[in-house]
């Protein structure tokens, strides 16, 4: 029997969650589609459901512990309206589905859904964002990248909920307008059409160059492998080199890319297209960095 729970506080929700393991439903935009049924019948949920959207405690955006924290039930459009949101994330959220859906969908839900094509993930991963997981027993913070293990799979425990998404303020500042000429951030979604689209791939790249040297560089790619890929090895090799050498060094680390990027053919695109486009976007990013006046 599928039960529906409607907790009124976070504590009640956590208690219910540990007792029943009910599936948390915030905006419902993924779950309602995944378990869609014949019209007028309730969706075919595999187990009990617990609504979270009504929990005021999960609706907030604030700075704490050196992080910009976004409450787990905050709808995407509310996040988009907040001026403190880093541009890369704003760009990504703005291109997810359509306005009506973004009034329902939450960022936490997009993460928990763990789709390899979830558009919020490349920027979150580039920013080293984490999720705070809470249960009646306590809480833990986990980088988004470690939170997701496979398509549709996360390490969320039966008694846990995503309390918030946390973006390090150090990154927010680094990518901030005052540093604009030193830092470059790119978000690009290649969708099935210009709006209201799912991604064929989406990428987020970030670099910080100062005094002719690459201080920081981060590259994340979505929908090109089973989970979002961060090119950590390549990043390590590019960090600290002089900007003038970027293109040359990049050529030598492309092999890391070849290993990490293993897209598939599906109903939305082809493996060939995904791989070539990912590589071209990276090449383009690197060559733009190299050509930058500050470089």
């Amino acid at each position: 029997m599928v039960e529906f729970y409607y907790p009124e506080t976070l504590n009640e929700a956590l208690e219910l969650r540990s007792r029943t393991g009910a599936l948390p439903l915030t905006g419902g935009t993924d779950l309602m589609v995944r378990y869609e049924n014949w019209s007028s019948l309730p969706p075919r949920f595999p187990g009990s459901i617990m609504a979270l959207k009504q929990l005021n405690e999960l609706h907030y955006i604030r700075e704490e512990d050196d992080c910009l924290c976004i409450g787990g039930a905050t709808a995407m459009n509310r996040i988009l309206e907040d001026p403190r949101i880093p541009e890369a994330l704003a760009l990504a959220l703005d291109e997810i589905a359509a306005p009506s859906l973004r009034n329902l969908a939450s960022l936490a839900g997009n993460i928990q859904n763990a789709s390899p094509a979830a558009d919020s993930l490349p920027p979150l991963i580039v920013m080293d964002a984490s999720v705070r997981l809470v249960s009646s027993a306590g809480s833990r913070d986990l980088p988004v990248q470690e939170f997701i293990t496979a398509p549709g799979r996360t390490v969320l425990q039966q008694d846990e909920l995503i309390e918030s998404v946390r973006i390090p303020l150090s990154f927010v500042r680094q990518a901030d307008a005052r540093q604009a000429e030193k830092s470059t951030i790119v978000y690009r979604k290649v969708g099935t059409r210009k709006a209201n689209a799912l991604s064929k791939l989406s990428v987020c790249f970030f670099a910080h160059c100062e005094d002719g040297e690459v201080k920081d560089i981060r590259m994340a790619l979505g929908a090109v492998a089973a989970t979002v890929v961060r090119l950590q090895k390549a990043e390590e090799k590019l960090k600290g080199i002089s900007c003038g050498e970027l293109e040359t060094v990049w050529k030598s680390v492309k092999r890391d890319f070849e290993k990490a990027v293993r897209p598939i053919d599906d109903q939305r695109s082809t493996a060939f297209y995904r791989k070539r486009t990912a590589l071209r976007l990276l090449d383009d990013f690197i060559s733009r960095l190299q050509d930058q006046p500050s470089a």
Partner: protein
Amino acid sequence: MKDNKIEFRVNGETRIYEGDPLRRLLDVLREDLGLTGPKDGCGEGECGACSILLDGEVVNSCLIPVGTIQGQEVLTVEGLNETDQGKCIVEAYADAGAVQCGFCIPGMVMATEALLRKNPSPDEAAVRKAISGNLCRCTGYDQIVDAVLMAADRGKGLW
């Protein structure tokens, strides 16, 4: 939610629902309340034909389990049409030639209302973006865009 009763307001009237809380709001509106303005075009959040306003924000009613809207305010095209803003939008759609088969239009009208509440004098790009979740297979959107601009122009001061 007390005793499995869900209380919410629809077009200004309080409603108490006692059925399965997981049913889609769209079905409850259409089948239980006889409000057939919102349409079922896809049932998967893609087409926007089921658009309504929930606490003033445009949403897809096919994606909402009715149990989650406790205490909230639903506005459908039937309710909107009773207001000056609604009438202004409907008239503009008719005058701009924005209506063909009509199946997408009630949803478009709701998206239009949501846009104009936030931005009473949008430009073409803002209009196109605001209706990007409402698919129309007939019009190619040009006359719908005209209609929204026309409504904004005629209804100055209404929003």
